[in-house]
């Protein structure tokens, strides 16, 4: 691949690449025409029946299982077991009972679990990303002895299953008198996220054109300054994207919170409640479909509202190959 550094403005004004169709006002004429050409090319590509056919098939394949569950979550228990969800149009029995039970069928209000989930998730997203950004910067832009070995070691630690860490960590938390508090959950999630976060963010960091960093150095900026003033703004999209994935993982986590926070209602997140819906002997699983959808709502909102960050240049610099 080419080694041409990316024109800096495509970082600073990512809209340029994304405006598609050249409808965005205020772009230079040369650019506009190019964007137009691409839009035409893109339109041509999708009008190819093969391409659009494959896209639609994939979209349908990927959506149908979830859709089936959605329909199921509104059907009465007996119906779920008696006939397939696709018979719904011919036999439209709708009930909100599953949702009512999932939401209110507990001695602890759903709101409590919801608040716990939020309280657990936010710090567990902010802390590891900040730490990982700093580390990734050092791995990408500061020369030091043993850097590569350390980086590979960090990256390899992704494979440590969280399960093996439970007993050693819980023992320490008990010693420190922290067991059963939010602190343990935040700390644990942060630690577990770091290898992947550093690995991904390092990739973005490294691909920022060296000329930008060099220029800042020439101006006498130290590492802290370069990190905050040059790199962070460029990496906003990457950070937002990783934040979403970290958000998803923490939001959907059951194991870490069960072990370190215990299931006590003071700290238990939504997933603990959803897991309970199956009942002591797994006999209540018709409620799980409703529970699954309730717990999906927030991640979806987060995804939709942050999706524009995804689109703009996550991995922006990777063109250097």
């Amino acid at each position, binding site marked *: 691949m080419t080694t041409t550094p990316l024109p800096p403005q495509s970082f600073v004004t990512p809209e340029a690449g994304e405006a598609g169709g050249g409808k965005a006002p205020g772009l230079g004429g040369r650019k506009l025409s190019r964007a137009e050409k691409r839009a035409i090319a893109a339109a041509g590509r999708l009008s190819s029946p093969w391409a659009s056919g494959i896209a639609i098939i994939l979209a349908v394949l*990927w959506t149908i299982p979830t859709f089936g569950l959605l329909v199921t979550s509104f059907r009465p228990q007996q119906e779920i077991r008696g006939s397939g969800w696709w018979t719904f149009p011919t036999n439209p029995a709708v009930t909100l009972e599953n949702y009512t039970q999932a939401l209110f069928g507990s001695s602890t209000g759903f709101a409590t679990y919801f608040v716990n989930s939020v309280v657990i998730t936010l710090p567990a997203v902010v802390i590891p990303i900040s730490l990982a950004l700093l580390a990734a910067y050092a791995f990408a832009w500061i020369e030091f002895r043993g850097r590569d070995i350390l980086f590979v070691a960090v990256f390899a630690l992704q494979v440590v299953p969280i399960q093996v860490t439970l007993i050693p960590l819980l023992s320490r938390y008990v010693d420190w008198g922290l067991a059963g508090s939010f602190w343990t959950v935040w700390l644990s999630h942060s630690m577990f996220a770091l290898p992947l976060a550093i690995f991904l963010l390092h990739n973005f960091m490294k691909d920022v054109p060296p000329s930008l960093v060099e220029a800042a150095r020439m101006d006498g900026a130290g590492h802290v300054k370069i990190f905050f003033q040059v790199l962070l703004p460029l990496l906003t999209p990457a950070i937002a994207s990783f934040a979403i994935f970290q958000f998803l993982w923490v939001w959907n986590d059951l194991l870490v919170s069960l072990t370190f926070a215990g299931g006590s209602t003071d700290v238990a997140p939504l997933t603990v409640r959803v897991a309970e819906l199956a009942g002591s002997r797994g006999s209540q699983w018709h409620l799980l479909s409703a529970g699954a959808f309730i717990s999906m709502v927030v991640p979806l909102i987060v995804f939709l509202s942050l999706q524009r960050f995804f689109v703009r240049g996550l991995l922006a610099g990777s063109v250097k190959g």
Partner: protein
Amino acid sequence: MDWLVNADTTAEKLVLMLVAIGLFVLVMAVILLGVDRVKRVPQWVVVVAFVGPAMAAIAFGLVYPGLRTIRDSFYDRTSSNPVGLDNYVAAFTQDAFQVVLRNTLLWVVLVPLLATFVGLVYAVLVDRTRFEQFAKTLVFLPMAISMVGAGIIWKFVYEYRPDQQGVAQIGLLNQLLVWLGIEPQQFLLNQPFNNFFLIAVMIWIQAGFAMTVLSAAIKAIPDDIIEAARLDGLHGVGMFRYITVPSIRPALVVVVTTIAMGTLKVFDIVRTMTGGNFGTSVVANEFYNQSFRISNLGLGAALAVILFVLVIPLIVYNVRQLRLSEDIR
């Protein structure tokens, strides 16, 4: 100050959350400002300030437990007496361990490649179309579902009922077969194909991750490259093969590696859908069983170490990629 550890009310919890974030920001700010203020700080101080906190967290949260696991793998079921290599012998001579290993390899090869392939193709196809946002959301959807939730959804899809009077199919896949005039199948039971039906679930989940990351990478391909290629007469598949894929190569490596790592560790799908029966178990599931169901810590640890070993090829591959990109730079 009791609420710092035992926050009970919603207000206390939210305040505690802000305190935690604030505290963290404060500590980091002090470290970084300290480094920045002092003139002519030695290089290593800067490195420690940047890398130190993350490394300390990793050392405590992952290295220490990882080393303990390696130690435990040479000890007995309560990790009190050393037993040498017995656990590894037990793991490898375990009934059907070859099958478990074979399944794990199937998972770790198929899931990253297929999920990345689907994600890539989809990202290219919907790129810059009018429905792009919506189309991407559809494929992203499975990411938002927990593994256990995904297990439920797919158990529904694979559900089997016999083809007889008075019995209706409730699994979509079997209903399709019946409509086509084929006998319904027990997808989760029939070896060895049941493995592929489980793997499909993981691909279904991970394709959203691949699609999201790769889509962004595609957007970042500079226009002039595409322009030049077009002038050279590249279109469609040619453009995909000679321009798109090489341009996002580093992103592809990252995605494949990340998914492969995740796949090695995953057992929730196997656990909720077949419980590891019918020849579908994977190393991670065996590890979970031994450690948490049968309480044989030694054997469980040995299986975890086997997972560590399985990841070595991935590490080697990534180190080579890293070297490659360093050379280019």
